[in-house]
């Protein structure tokens, strides 16, 4: 039996603007299982980033509930106060964005040790060893001492992924992580994600506008005007049927 790790129940998010209320998410019900690599595909403005912000509690919801079962705890994310949420998020979820946001004056390894040092979960020597292990995971250990300016965009994004994994979260959420990378480099990022899911038991939720990526997920949904839709029948056919 599959175990849900994230559950969204009747989630609504409405933004008030000068032009009136704008419903960004409409009655979202979603269950994500442990070990899934879930893709949510939709156009710009469809509600993708808002959905991620509901899951990691970065933005508040208008009604509904988000439950996350991780670290042996069941947490109703939006019942936590800001401080509790930040602490919980730091332990439970890694985030990866389109722009890599590495600190330019710190070496790659320092960029990874930083969140560990901030969280204080590891001793300095441990955090360095762990950062090195994460760099090995994304195949960048020989560049550990370099500053971000001296590695490629794809390599910087791999460092950002390693950094997101620094505190060993069960869940990774990614907002267009390959949006500014060429297709070959993007492939490499997907390889890293697939490895994290298959071999490390991580759960990943990624949003993208790129329909071409849907075959890379273990499951995908589309989002249109704030509503989730299952894939069409055509798209649900087995993808890699063997030639007879």
């Amino acid at each position: 039996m599959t175990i849900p790790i994230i559950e969204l129940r009747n989630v609504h998010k409405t933004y008030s603007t000068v032009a009136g209320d704008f419903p960004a998410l409409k009655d979202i019900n979603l269950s994500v299982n442990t070990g899934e690599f879930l893709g949510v595909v939709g156009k710009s403005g469809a509600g993708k980033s808002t959905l991620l912000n509901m899951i990691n509690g970065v933005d508040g919801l208008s009604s509904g509930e988000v439950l996350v079962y991780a670290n042996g705890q069941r947490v109703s994310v939006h019942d936590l106060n800001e401080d509790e949420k930040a602490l919980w998020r730091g332990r439970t979820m890694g985030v990866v964005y389109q722009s890599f946001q590495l600190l330019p004056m710190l070496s790659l390894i320092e960029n990874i040790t930083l969140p560990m040092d901030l969280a204080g979960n590891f001793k300095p020597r441990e955090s360095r060893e762990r950062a090195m292990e994460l760099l090995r995971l994304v195949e960048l250990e020989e560049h550990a001492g370099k500053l971000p300016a001296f590695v490629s965009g794809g390599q910087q994004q791999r460092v950002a992924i390693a950094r997101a994994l620094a505190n060993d979260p069960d869940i990774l959420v990614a907002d267009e992580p390959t949006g500014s990378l060429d297709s070959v480099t993007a492939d490499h990022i997907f390889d890293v994600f697939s490895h994290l899911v298959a071999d490390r038991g991580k759960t990943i939720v990624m949003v993208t506008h790129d329909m071409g990526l849907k075959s890379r997920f273990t499951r995908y949904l589309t989002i249109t005007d704030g509503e989730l839709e299952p894939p069409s029948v055509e798209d649900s056919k087995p993808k890699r049927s063997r030639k007879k």
Partner: protein
Amino acid sequence: MTTMPDKRKAPRQTTPKAAPQRVSDASLEAIIEMRGIIKRFSNAAGEFTVLKGVDLMINRGEFVSIVGKSGSGKSTLLNMITGIDHPSEGQVIVNHNDIYTDVSESARSKWRGKNLGIVFQFFQLLPMLTLLENVMLPMDYVDMYDFDERPKRAMELLKLVGLEKFANKLPVLVSTGQQQLAAIARAMACDPPLLIADEPTGNLDTRSADTIIEIFEHFVEQGKTIVMVTHDPSLTSRTHRNIIISDGELIDETISRGLPQLRHRHMLEFTKIAERRLYQPQETIVSRDEKLDHFYIIRKGEVEIVLQKQRSKETILSRLGADEFFGEAELVRGGKSIANVRAGKTPVEVVAIPRADFNRVMDESPITVDAISKIVQKRLQEHRMADPRKR
């Protein structure tokens, strides 16, 4: 009881990790001094030189923009100042300290934390930290200010950039303009004397860009020095100094200010061939009816254009100051000087470009010829004077 073998190693021989050292002959006014900076890169295609002997002095309190085409070396130049990259040859002195000679990477990193604020085009805020926490980060990193004082100081900086309401928000919940403002607040967290910005407004709308320049101006008023690489002409017009880099070399600032319409490659050509000349007060620079063989731009001091009519007193037709030029009409026309030109009451420094080179570039640059004639017309009108030979 068994004894474990002693796994402790002999004390490691460590090389001294020297912090940047004070340079005895460093200029007192300068906060940045670059001396003969050469930067070479090697790649599969071979070795190429990105900076070809850069000498640059930036004084305390200056607001400086650096412009140049893509690939001209401007980001490399900035990386030499921030210590993100290191020169192949030459010396970089920042705040009187040589930041490269015998300085380890980690010592430079600590030094940088206290002496430099850096702002980039993409704001590099940590996504999992609030704006306030992002601003506190450098204070934690270099261990400046008391632990309890840090949030207060970070809040003051956020207030300064108008973001106190958003202090506890994560970067993803504020606009890109606000993210850049937070990045600026973070750059100033340890109160560095020098702020380095690489295309700080490159990713923003004009209104946000304007706010950022206003904040930069505020820091400059407080005595900070700001060096900024930018593409945006509306920003360069608001800085004290605009340095142009072309093909790895700096353009003489007198030439770029005097002839802003020239292409960068022509400015660079003039920079290389121009002679620097110094004249004492009242010394003649060009005599009337002398064949003009140079085009002059004034670097320093004031020049008097004097008409000496026969048996009458001399008339000063015009006075020209820094960045103004003379000798143009005659050169373009191929004639002789129409008046005497002499140094004013203080010594005068000029940049002199040989006639043949000046004419050749003018032939290639009708826009400049046009601009020069407009400037001359305007100048003549301003001084309510006409060419005496046309009278």
